[in-house]
């Protein structure tokens, strides 16, 4: 097997403590089918052991390796070098926006995690409630329908709390108080009917009304959460709730 070899320069954002940020350049020989995270790991292993970055699972499940690659948010573990560079070219790797930088490519996502907890985003939900297409079991391998019929079957919810949507959102850039796509999507997932606390969070200036429909969250979401659609649905819920209250039917309606 002859492996294709590309020479790619990685322009990596660096910042330690209070020092001014700068970019370091690393010229690497890579296979275009390797992932950006593989290159970052190789830079750390063979070029600069002081490079700080974060990762865990390497298969788009943990949501830890989110970075901006050429100014667009990506899970670097599933972003092939071929998709973001060309042979002899350059790739810029930066930490996510709208979060405080701890060091180099690592940001502090504590606020996001705390907010997801505050809105009680469930880690799992019944398979029957999942927005999954019914998979035909033609090949005899796919589970097909039966899983849905298991009343106790649960699955991990789609949002992996990677923060890509928050980084991509133009409103989160200027409005630190904005709940942001991930948290609003978590609220929509549960619905606000009969939940005054969630409804109050969603229906305020830092909630659904701050969104300006750029749909960048949906564009970068690696996990089919579609936060943009969920925010719009939440608006519909908020308007419906307001009208129900107007006609004297409260939270129980």
């Amino acid at each position, binding site marked *: 097997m002859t492996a294709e070899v590309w020479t790619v320069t990685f322009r990596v954002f660096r910042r330690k403590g209070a020092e001014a940020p700068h970019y370091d350049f690393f010229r690497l020989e890579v296979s275009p089918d390797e992932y950006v995270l593989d290159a970052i790991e190789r830079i750390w292993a063979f070029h600069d052991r002081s490079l700080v970055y974060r990762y865990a699972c390497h298969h788009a499940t943990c949501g830890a390796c989110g970075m901006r690659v050429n100014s667009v948010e990506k899970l670097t573990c599933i972003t092939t070098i071929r998709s973001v560079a060309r042979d002899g070219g350059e790739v810029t790797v930066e930490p996510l926006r709208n979060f405080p930088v701890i060091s180099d490519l690592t940001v502090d996502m504590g606020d996001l995690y705390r907010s997801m907890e505050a809105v009680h985003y469930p880690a799992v939900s019944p398979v029957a409630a999942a927005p999954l297409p019914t998979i035909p079991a033609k090949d005899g391998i796919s589970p097909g329908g039966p899983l849905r019929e298991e009343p106790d079957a649960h699955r991990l919810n789609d949002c992996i709390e990677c923060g890509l949507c928050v980084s991509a959102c133009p409103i989160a850039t200027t409005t630190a108080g904005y709940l942001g796509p991930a948290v609003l999507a978590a609220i929509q997932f549960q619905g606000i009917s009969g939940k005054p606390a969630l409804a109050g969070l969603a229906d305020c200036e830092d909630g659904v009304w701050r969104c300006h429909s750029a749909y960048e969250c949906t564009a970068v979401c690696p996990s089919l959460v579609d936060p943009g659609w969920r925010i719009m649905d939440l608006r519909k819920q908020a308007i419906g*709730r*307001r009208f129900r209250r107007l006609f004297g039917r409260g939270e129980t309606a």
Partner: protein
Amino acid sequence: MDLTQSAPKSGEGTGLWLLKIATGALVIILLGIHLTVNHLTAPQGLLDYHEVAVYLSHPGIALMEGSFLVIVVTHALLGLRSIILDLKPSRRVLGAVNWGFSIVGAGCVVYGIWLLQVIVSRGAGG
């Protein structure tokens, strides 16, 4: 975004947002009429004084242009306020914006209605 620190506020909720959207929709309709009559069908794109006076002498048209003024000013000020909200103003700044915009809005409407009344009362012959 930290919910442990930020409490819900009511700077822009369903009500104001719906008002922005509703006035926006009305602006599309009224601006369509306004543009067609005042600029598209007019010779050289602009009405002269006499044509304006004739146009406004229909009570329905004067009423429409008056409502258009109220609606478009409302939409513009709500939109500007929304942009300011994106810049995370302090409560004090937002309070000043609310007052300032209310005064500007009311001023524009009073001015516009005064202007309409001046032209209508002077009549098309004037």
